[in-house]
């Protein structure tokens, strides 16, 4: 009996590993291609392991194609997005969880509706608003909305604040602590785990965002990494190595964050049904 089961598990492992190879092959091929020198990249049959290893494409893409600047821009925008999302979502979630007011139901409804409205419907008027405000070719359209709280983050933190016993809030109020201070001194630090999950999600989303930068940024100096990579890939004369080196630079930060924050990320998806 037990032997049959272990045989079955063996088959499962083999299938999972075969599938895993398919999943990882593009990553390996990206790295391998980026390190091949000159004509080795078009050899048939292909070189499985780059020989000799040529690092020069990384310095070309980093300095000459200016990925160094794009990396800085991306980190700048994403950092502000994370800060803005955490602060504003905590504020709104706390307001909804702790206070009763007339339009509360309306706000819930509004939050749900924003989750269902596809982005392309609001895209053109959104662009027009930023154009009228002089926000084209600035980072405003990419940063300001995150300081105004999004429905996903509010829901996530709201669940947490609801689960905290109300007595805590009441006790602090009796001690003479105003709601503003209760939020930032007590509730905000208390929700560290929910905040870090939200922070990871926000990082991933903002880092990959292509539509926003594509609409609002036209000056090459302002480009983010995905936009820089898109422009590079639309240039038909570009060497595959250079393109792959660029793709490696875009990928590395998210992989590092993912491996560190793997658990929160996976649990967040499982509990909210959010698609990456």
């Amino acid at each position, binding site marked *: 009996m037990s032997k049959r089961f272990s045989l079955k598990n063996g088959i499962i492992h083999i299938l999972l590993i075969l599938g895993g190879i398919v999943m990882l092959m593009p990553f390996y091929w990206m790295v391998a291609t980026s390190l091949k020198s000159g004509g080795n990249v078009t050899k048939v049959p292909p070189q499985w392991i780059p020989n000799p290893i040529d690092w020069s494409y990384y310095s070309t893409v980093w300095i000459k194609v200016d990925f160094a600047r794009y990396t800085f821009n991306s980190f700048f925008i994403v950092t502000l997005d994370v800060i803005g999302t955490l602060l504003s979502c905590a504020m709104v979630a706390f307001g909804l969880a702790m206070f009763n007011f007339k*339009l509360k139901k309306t706000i819930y409804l*509004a939050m749900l509706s924003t989750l269902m409205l596809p982005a392309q419907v*609001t895209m053109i008027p959104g662009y027009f608003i930023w154009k009228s405000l002089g926000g084209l070719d600035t980072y405003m359209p990419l940063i300001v909305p995150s300081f*105004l709280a999004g429905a996903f983050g509010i829901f996530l933190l709201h669940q947490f604040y609801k689960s905290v016993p109300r007595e805590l809030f009441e006790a602090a109020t009796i001690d003479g602590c105003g709601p503003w201070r209760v939020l930032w001194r007590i509730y905000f630090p208390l929700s560290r785990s929910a905040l870090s999950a939200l922070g990871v999600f926000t990082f991933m989303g903002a880092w990959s965002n292509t539509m926003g930068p594509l609409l609002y940024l036209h000056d090459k100096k302002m480009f983010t990494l995905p936009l820089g990579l898109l422009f590079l890939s639309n240039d038909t004369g570009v060497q595959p190595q250079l393109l792959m080196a660029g793709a490696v630079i875009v990928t590395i930060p998210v992989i590092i964050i993912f491996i560190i924050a793997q658990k929160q990320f996976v649990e967040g998806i*499982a509990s909210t049904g959010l698609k990456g």
Partner: protein
Amino acid sequence: MQKQNRWGYILTLPFTIHFIVFFAFPFIFSFYLTFTKWDMFNAPDWIGMGNWTKLLTDKPFWYAIRNAALFAAVFVPLQTIFALILAFFLNQAIRAKSFYRVIYFLPVVTPWLAGGTMWRWMMNKTYGLANYMLSLFDIPPVDWLDSKYWWLPITSVALVNVWKGVGSSMIILLAGIQSVSKELYEAAALDGATRWTLFWKIVFPIVSPMIFLVLILSTISSFQAFDVFLVMFSSPDIVSDQKLTPNILIYKDAFLTSKMGYASAMSWALFVLIISVTLVQKWFEKRWVHYE
């Protein structure tokens, strides 16, 4: 009580501004735009139903809808079946579960621009790894992304999309399968149920709401796909009509040729289509999804 009211409004103010400026106003304005011709520099020109009647016979628009439908038809079932199998495997008490989870999840967090760039190179007709692998079995090279048959590039991208998305569906389904209690398994196993009947009679009914969620999410995402087509096909200004998809077409018409009114009409048509597809799925849901 008065004070309570005040704090509620103050604290939720950021979202209220967000909603009014970036959702409510754009939503209404965009609907108005569907009846106009507008280049964003001059005032919008009211043309009544002009955009909507044009939509009915506009070839590029229907190519885009056709492509999105094929894309969904390939991507949604494949992704759901693979995700279900993976989740079922991972739920068996096997070692290294989190190791596999990380591997299958890696493409989900990889930005589309990077993932698409990798695959575009792998699917290169002359030098791509995909065709080299086929050549080992004496299969002639396939023109994955530039074939003269319209369905081939769309199918190729749908397959890449399965690679990208299967991990997140797997996680949602795995959470569902893990909610099946051990006692239930053991009781069924004691009664002599095989793994096959165990799966169909116990796991599947309990997981069916999750499967349904995954189906809806992936169908909606296929009609909204943008980044993947942006990176896998040539840029929107030169991509052939046969390879258009709804959001690429909307982007192209609005921002490359300044037809804001017509692009708005297309975005509303797509919105209505997505809602209808979701409603149809909801109707099917009643027939096979099991809720406790």
